[in-house]
């Protein structure tokens, strides 16, 4: 009698799929270092990190939705509206501060309330109405952008409120303040998702919905929570968006969306379990920002940069699809 044994080809493919993105990035970073002398210095690192903040904070929210919904790109968890939520919240805060003379606390509270409400609307559409997250958040994303245009009349609003200036220029223990706060958020999110009881259950819901139900977990509640949390991170990101731009500017959501999605799924390629993780999203955001600065430093045309980033999304998503095919 012979047990019919599985053969080893899938492992090879999966190893290939995991090495490719990492190799590409290391090669690119090395190339930047050679071509642009200042690229590998600590000051540059700080700049890269600072530029990565809004994307990273949005990536925290998006990664939690993906973790809870599963990383199937079409049917799984995705929230395309997180950047729009940030832009809407930023618009409200800027409008309140500049045009209504509100106190910073009031303005921020209103912005956050809108962000949470937006997250709740997503949660409702997905868990109660039963829309696929992709479609639901694509639709709400358009609506949130539209709302932000109503609030700002599609104009830029300059801000010089002390809160925004402090967040932009302040520092704590030698670290830029924004960076310190973002790091705090990332550590908290990492602990909640990867080190806590709740987080393990959240991962189970996304990893295998049937398994989660058998373990007695309330699947819909976790899904709804993930969208609410994403909304909250959208609200948090709005402050960084305001600080970075010294005000609210129409039209930033598109770039943010592309970079956030890229960062989040890029992170999966570097995770040992080949899944979307919180710290992976942060790492992804840093890499995306390193690429932007790197390409600029060696004088690559901005249109090419967009093209190359799109190509990278393709490679990463393809690699994760390959890993999935050979996985189970």
């Amino acid at each position, binding site marked *: 009698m012979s*047990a019919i044994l599985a*053969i080893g080809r899938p492992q090879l493919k999966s190893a290939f799929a995991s090495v490719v993105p990492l190799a590409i990035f290391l090669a690119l970073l090395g190339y930047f270092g050679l071509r642009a002398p200042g690229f590998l210095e600590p000051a540059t690192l700080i700049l890269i990190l600072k530029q990565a903040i809004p994307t990273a904070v949005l990536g925290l929210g998006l990664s939690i939705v993906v973790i809870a919904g599963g990383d199937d790109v079409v049917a799984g968890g995705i929230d395309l509206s997180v950047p729009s939520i940030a832009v809407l919240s930023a618009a409200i805060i800027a409008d309140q501060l500049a045009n209504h003379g509100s106190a910073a606390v009031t303005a921020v509270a209103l912005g956050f309330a809108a962000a949470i409400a937006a997250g709740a609307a997503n949660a409702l559409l997905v868990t109660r109405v039963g829309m696929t997250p992709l479609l639901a958040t694509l639709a709400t994303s358009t609506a949130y952008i539209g709302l932000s245009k109503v609030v700002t009349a599609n104009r830029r609003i300059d801000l010089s409120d002390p809160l925004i200036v402090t967040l932009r220029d302040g520092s704590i223990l030698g670290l830029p303040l924004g960076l310190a706060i973002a790091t705090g958020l990332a550590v908290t999110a990492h602990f909640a998702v990867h080190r806590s009881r709740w987080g*393990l*259950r959240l991962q189970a819901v996304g990893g295998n919905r*049937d398994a989660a139900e058998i373990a007695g977990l309330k699947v819909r509640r976790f899904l709804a929570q993930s969208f609410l949390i994403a909304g909250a991170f959208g609200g948090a990101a709005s402050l960084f968006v305001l600080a970075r731009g010294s005000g609210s500017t129409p039209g930033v959501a598109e770039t943010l969306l592309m970079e956030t999605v890229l960062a989040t799924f890029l992170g999966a390629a570097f995770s040992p379990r080949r899944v979307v993780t919180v710290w992976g999203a942060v790492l992804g955001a840093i890499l995306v920002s390193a690429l932007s600065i790197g390409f600029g430093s060696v004088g690559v045309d901005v249109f090419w940069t967009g093209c190359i980033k799109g190509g990278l999304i393709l490679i990463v998503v393809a690699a994760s699809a390959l890993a999935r095919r050979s996985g189970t």
Partner: protein
Amino acid sequence: MTAPVLPLTPVSPPAGASDFLVLEAISKGFPGVQALDGAGLGVRAGEIHGVVGENGAGKSTLIKVLAGVYRPDAGRILLNGAEIETGSPDAVQAAGVRFIHQELNLVPHFTVAETIFLGQELSGPFGLRTGAMRRAAEAFLKDSLDAAIAGNRLIADLGIAERKLVQIARALIDGKARVVVFDEPTAPLSHTEIEHLFRAIDALARRGIAMIYVSHYLSEITRICHRVSVLRNGRNVGLVDPVGPDDADRLISLMVGRDIGDLYPKRNHAAAAPWLKLTSLSQSPHYADVDLELRRGEIVGLAGLIGSGREELVDTIVGLARPASGSISIDGRPLRSGSTAAAAGRGLAHVPRDRRNDGLVLAMNVADNINLASLEAVSTGGFVRRGAATTRAQQSAEALDIRPKTVSTAARLLSGGNQQKVVLARGLATGASLFVLDEPTIGVDVGAKAEIYALIERLAAEGAAVLVSSSDPAELLGLCDRILVLLRGRIVAEVTPETTDLDRLVALTTGGDAAGGIAA
């Protein structure tokens, strides 16, 4: 080689001891079917109690009643003398009844420890106590299931047997399990792996846990179980106590025992030249070295349990899957594997087992479904001639007696039998010369079954080659000229209805046949 000897000595629970779990006179009906009709079950602490029966005998309904998925129409469930609420999965869980489902349902990127502790994690002020959970998981696997699996390994890296053990450990980790129900636990496992699983189950029995073991594999049932309840048509037809290695025949005769009658048409096939030919077709881990010849005008059956590789073999023939080695040829010319389009181009019509998802476009009407695969016959220059299409569909609907007769009815509104006739009509409309029918009568009522059988018979009489894959041995015996039996991925026998009765065919598919033995 011979079947391996079981390295364990079943501990008999005290004879005559009172049953720890009792399912009493359970009845459950569904529209059109009385799934359970006063069936019962008594299981002692420390006993492994087998439940056998043919498909549709009521095994899975009984298990779902116990699980609280279904609320029975009549009857009650007692655990240690106390009645537990029916129809409530939570109450059953709280009472200490655990289910090891056939599907593993694990998260591939979780570690063993995370999987086992999901839902009852160990947590401290600094979050999850990863180390503690890993050690506890390893200790539990070792002590309770006699298994050495590192707690930090990923599920995706485990073999199927190890995953099964992790699944069991997850059900038992809270230490409150008093009854464990196994549903076909060995289906995906190899023989060595089965031995490992049996050691674990035996270890549980020694700890006094009552176990229900549902399986089609009679050779396993007779080796591991202490007693066996046999169900037929929703009723208990026998309790074999104690059960021993020689009781397979007795179980089979209890399970079968029904009259086939004249459900099946008379066979009258003139054998022609070979049409479909499989040569040493293999696809690990599903099937290996399959040879098969099918002639025009002939109906050949494929028998085998779920997990025997039968489904995968059919998928390969119709182009849904690619074999690892071996070849398929039709009419002497090789067929490009892994392409349904290539297969269809060579005159192969496939009637899938899951007709609602794979066979029909439910949102389309009957006429469109019938014409779907042969639109060129009713089109001019890429445009479908609606009139011609409807007329042709109408004709074939009448020929096959599809009801309702209006072909503009949406396919989703038809009964199962009529849906299946639509799928067959589509195959007929393509003028196919080779039909591969996968579970052609599953979920179809008896009246429609007879019509479908007559239709299959007509296909063969008109010169088509027909391959029927079915989990119903009686159906194969009634319909086919020859039957090939798959067991654990290999063809173990080829029989004809003239020389084989139902008992023997069931014995062959379940590996409970001493003469045929297990695939060697």
